């Protein structure tokens, strides 16, 4: 049973914001798929089905204080850290003002200096070791900031996943490792990715708690993350969270999941859409009325239209970028080293 939103301990006002962001992110995701299909952008990776889990996750952190190393499906969490639809769209259009990649990175490589969301590569799991370095920094600074890092279930096969968790266990690092487990790595189903009953069991092998969390249940997710964050802030070390979510869309816009997922399975996934569940919850728990939701939908549509237009109108990177920021400039005065 999905737990009540109110059991999360968040206020109604907070829950309104969360829900609105989730809905915004769904509508934005749909728009981005559409932009890709109509040739306005060249690529999109959808996060549909992972939004509720990501929202529960994001709400447990302090954006601006905590570091965040997202992966390519994390649009909802990224927005909850404080990023706008327009910013995200600028990255999709390859515009220089996009915070993630300034037109240099592919779409969906979420990052933003402003909220300590760190630049990511496409090489899966390679953010995990980097996250441990950032977490180690908190120890050096005697800070209670926490580092959040996410990846997919398939990506846990990588050696870098293992090496990071091992060191985090040894050094008791303030980091929350998240597996957004949607059961697939592109076309490869989970039983061809790993044979563990649950990836949460890996925690013990590193001396850190590993927990299974229902990422379709906002409250359950939020509370699990709250505990992991508290643990980390207190200096008790890392947690591994195996967050069970759904991948509702193709792997990316280059993929066609109907080749490897049956009609029945896809229908099931559609039926289990956690946004539907949560929409029912916000109505049932009196967080929004139906009329308010209708307004919200209208507002979001307008917002996203405006954001799309503005993002598209933003300038492409200048060609001079090709030779900028490769190395730091060598300091002319000393003549010897970068401006570290």
């Amino acid at each position, binding site marked *: 049973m999905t737990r009540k939103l109110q059991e999360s301990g968040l206020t109604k006002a907070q829950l309104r914001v969360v829900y609105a962001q989730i809905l915004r992110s769904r509508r934005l995701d749909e728009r981005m798929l559409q932009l890709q299909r109509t040739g306005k952008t060249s690529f999109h990776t959808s996060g549909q089905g992972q939004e509720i889990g990501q929202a529960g996750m994001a709400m447990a952190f302090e954006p601006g204080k905590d570091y965040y190393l997202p992966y390519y499906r994390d649009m909802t969490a990224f927005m909850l850290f404080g990023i706008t639809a327009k910013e995200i769209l600028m990255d999709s259009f390859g515009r220089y003002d996009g915070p993630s990649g300034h037109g240099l990175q592919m779409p969906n490589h979420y990052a933003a200096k402003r909220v300590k969301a760190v630049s990511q590569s496409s090489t899966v799991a390679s953010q995990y070791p980097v996250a441990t370095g950032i977490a180690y920094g908190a120890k050096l600074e005697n800070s209670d900031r926490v580092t959040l890092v996410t990846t997919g279930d398939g990506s846990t096969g990588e050696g870098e996943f293992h090496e990071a968790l091992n060191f985090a266990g040894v050094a008791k690092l303030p980091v929350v490792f998240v597996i957004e487990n949607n059961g697939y790595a592109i076309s490869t189903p989970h039983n*061809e990715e790993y044979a563990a009953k649950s990836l949460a069991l890996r925690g013990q092998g590193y001396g850190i708690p590993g927990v299974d969390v229902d990422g379709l249940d906002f409250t359950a997710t939020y509370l699990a993350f709250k505990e992991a964050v508290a643990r980390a802030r207190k200096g008790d070390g890392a947690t591994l969270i195996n967050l069970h979510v759904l991948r509702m869309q193709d792997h990316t816009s280059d993929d066609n999941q109907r080749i490897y997922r049956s009609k029945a399975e896809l229908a099931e996934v559609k039926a289990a859409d956690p946004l539907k569940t949560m929409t029912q919850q916000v109505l049932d728990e009196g967080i929004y009325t139906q009329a308010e939701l209708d307004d919200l939908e209208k507002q979001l549509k307008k917002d996203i239209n405006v954001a799309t237009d503005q993002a598209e109108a933003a300038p492409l*990177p200048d060609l001079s970028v090709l030779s900028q920021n490769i190395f730091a400039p060598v300091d002319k005065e000393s003549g010897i080293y970068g401006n570290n």
Partner: protein
Amino acid sequence: MATIDYLQALNQALDEELAQDDTLTVFGEDVGAPKGGVFNVTQGLAEKYGDLRVFNTPLSEAEIAGLAIGLGVSGHHAVAEFQFADYILPATNQIISEAARMRYRSQGDWSAPVVFRAPYGGGVGGGFYHSQSTEKVFVGQPGLRVVTPSTVRDAKGLLKSAIRCADPVLFFEHKRLYHSIKADIDPDEEILTPIDKAQVLRQGTDITVMSYGITLQYVLQAAEELAKSGIQTEVVDIRSLYPLDEATIVAAAKKTGKVLLVNEDNKEGGVLGEISAIISEQALFDLDAPIKRLAGPDSPAMPYAKNLEQAFLVQPDQVKQAMQELAEF
């Protein structure tokens, strides 16, 4: 005869070798049924040869490489796919420390006759991690052959030879050649391309241009155009990036005394440097012009925005212009 493209040629090579060598396995991320690889190079093979021989692996490139090596060591053959050439990097240790050294360190007691396939190259909107030319990381490792086909015929013949080769072969496939070049290939002809030889694709007397990958297509096209204005170009498909075919390279350089080297990778530190060094070591006094290199800029390959990506990529008109300038030198 049937007209097939570069990708179909690769698929045929795998199909034929799976049929004739029952120790052969083919695997990698999403390589098995039903997807058959993100580019479809292995499409239909799992259905035909079973999912014990053609299969998906977890995301773990070092394991993919090691799995292949272990199969090779124990008398099997393996074609391991890295989904993108960018993602060979996590497997660097397996490839260099294990595969490349196996035969020599055991003086032939053990060997690793495996093929590592990797789609490389940019111009596909893939940003930094789906566009790189990573061949430079792996050349210069005695024991490890690095090759790349740049024609449809070689896509088939070189892959078949690589599979039959007793040593590990790192096999790069340029993504933008997959569907952009086609040729008539007799499906019944057994094509086996020498694995250690460069290839002269066009004879010429005025300038010599050596290249591989998509830029080789630009060179061929420019050579065709320049021929009309009387400039005759000797075009060499480098093909075997390590070890290099010094004899063919030096002979082609001496023939015209004017050499241009072209590839898509960054200029400094790429494989063109070695080719240039071989020529200036062995044919310096035959040269009538500096050995020029036309390559990508020395910035990380490759930015996403279309304008930057195009600015990064060596363009056909740059190739033609460089050839013209060299002819006029």
